[in-house]
């Protein structure tokens, strides 16, 4: 298998994982028959790879979403497992990841999409960034998050960052930009929605 084929397989699996996780969540709302839910989610994962007229569901969605980041794939995998096994821990561990992604994304996307001449996306080209301080900023940010994750005993966050870093070094996604391994618009929008909802709930609870 060539590196490009491996990159395609990982990216398409990420999209199929997204479909399965969404299906599992929707089914969990409807009923408690979890084993059957996993069967349906697994079937959906496989079906999304089936090609009809040289086009599969995950290829179609990849055209729309591009590649999901390693962080998103780890969180989706965890969400699938946590649906059955570790729900309480999952709920406890999520906020800090989503707060972080929301915070970074709010600043990152407007500038990366063209507000002003500063382009933070450029800093993610770690191997070739001519302004080394951009790369150093990202590495410092990563180190800070790692320290927070360690203090907060957040295993999930540690694994997300570790696997994203390793995948970047191995060039497992098509991108050579570290940001694309850390987060993507799909997880950013989810994290932002979650953060706003979570903060709103907290605020209401305090008021009561």
């Amino acid at each position: 298998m060539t590196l490009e084929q491996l990159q395609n397989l990982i990216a398409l699996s990420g999209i199929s994982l997204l479909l399965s996780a969404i299906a599992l969540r929707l089914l969990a709302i409807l009923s408690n028959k979890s084993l059957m839910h996993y069967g349906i989610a697994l079937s959906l994962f496989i079906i999304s790879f089936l090609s009809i007229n040289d086009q599969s569901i995950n290829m179609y969605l990849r055209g729309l979403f591009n590649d999901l980041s390693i962080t998103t794939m780890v969180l989706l995998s965890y969400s699938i497992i946590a649906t059955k096994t570790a729900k309480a821990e999952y709920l406890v561990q999520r906020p800090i990841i989503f707060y972080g992604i929301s915070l970074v994304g709010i600043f990152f996307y407007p500038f990366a999409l063209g507000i002003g001449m500063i382009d933070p996306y450029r800093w993610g080209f770690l191997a070739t960034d001519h302004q080394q301080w951009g790369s150093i900023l990202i590495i410092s940010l990563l180190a800070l998050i790692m320290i927070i994750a360690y203090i907060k005993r957040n295993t999930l966050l540690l694994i997300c960052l570790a696997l994203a870093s390793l995948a970047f070094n191995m060039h497992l996604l098509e991108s050579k930009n570290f940001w694309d391994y850390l987060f993507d618009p799909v997880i950013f929008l989810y994290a932002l929605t979650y953060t706003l909802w979570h903060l709103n709930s907290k605020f209401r609870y305090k008021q009561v």
Partner: protein
Amino acid sequence: MKHTLFFIIAIVSLAMSASPLWQVWQSTEPERLFSLAKPLPTKQASSTPIIRHQFASHGSTPEVHSATAIELDNNDIMAFWYGGTREGHKDVAIYQNIWRSNDQQWQQEHAIVTRAHTQNGTSRYIRKLGNPVVTRASDHSIWLFYVSVSIGGWAGSSINLTRSYDEGKSWSTPKRLISSPFLNLSTLIKGSAIHYSDGSIGLPVYHELIGKFGELLKIDKQGNVIDKSRMSWGQTSLQPIIFPLSTKHAVAMMRYQGKPPNKILKQESNDAGIHWSKTTKSVLPNPGAGIMGLVLNDTTLSNHSTKQIEQILLLAFNNDPKERDDMTLAISSDQAQTWQIMQTIESNKLIPADNSQQFSYPWLLQTQNGTIHLLYTWHKNHIKHVVFNYPWLLSKAPKQTHSLHAHPTDLGDVK
């Protein structure tokens, strides 16, 4: 036990997360320098004016647009453009054709890249294909970049790359370039690629989602985007073209789509494209249409007193603030400070203006024998090919001289 497990995970994670540091540490990229083309041999250049018009396309598709071309090893010209029922139609493909240098005739064009071909190669749904740009890589292979759209209009474009190692006879499986963090949307191409001394390629691109601005991608020998620099920002600048003038210095010009006066934009870089000056309006008019430039690489242009090769910049553009109804050639011998209008290739001033009658999206190429090839979209249904040489370019007295410093109000950052 739980504490120990967490500690082990933390240590392993820390070690893995430190791996990008290795890439930063290893990033011993030498000083970034442009690779300039070697001057052409003097003996091959003709002093007799040459001009020849013909069509590169033969009507295989109702609509054609956005030609790009390269010289082959045997001195033939290989051109590419996109064609189909109409722009954005799902049957649009990238067509290829060859101009034989021995009989100076174009062959019959044929599709080399289709939507289905791109879908299979990139493992993604593709809705339509668009602008191609061809260049030769440092290993002498031919690289054909082209845009595709999966969702929405042209603002949703991404770049694909296919390569040929046998002078265009066969093409590799297309590869997707990742150049934007937001669903990899909105990176388009039009200007010709430039080259760096380390063998990487600089591809001028532009962004159309929310804002319209120019960027320069740096692409490694494997075809990965490894850096990019923002050339402008705001809502009005797109389709940059770059004239490398020395290993560090370059001038860029861009199509302008803002409030009148409609002029071509200009800017400079003194660090091989890492940073760019603010865009300023030149006095060259343009209706917000595609432009193309070339640094003429001909020893016949050498200054007899200094024995230095004069850098002559050639620009093909629509010399009108509103309509694309002409195709004009201008030259500059002072690094794009001033321009002289030399020739009008097409002039079809219609009153009232008829938008179906238009000449657009020029592409310029200078071959090893010194002749210059201009390709452009002719009324959107043909690709026109004009072959000429420098003596022909000078064969008429200059009609106008445009000075970039003529109007102080034109200066300033354009947003």
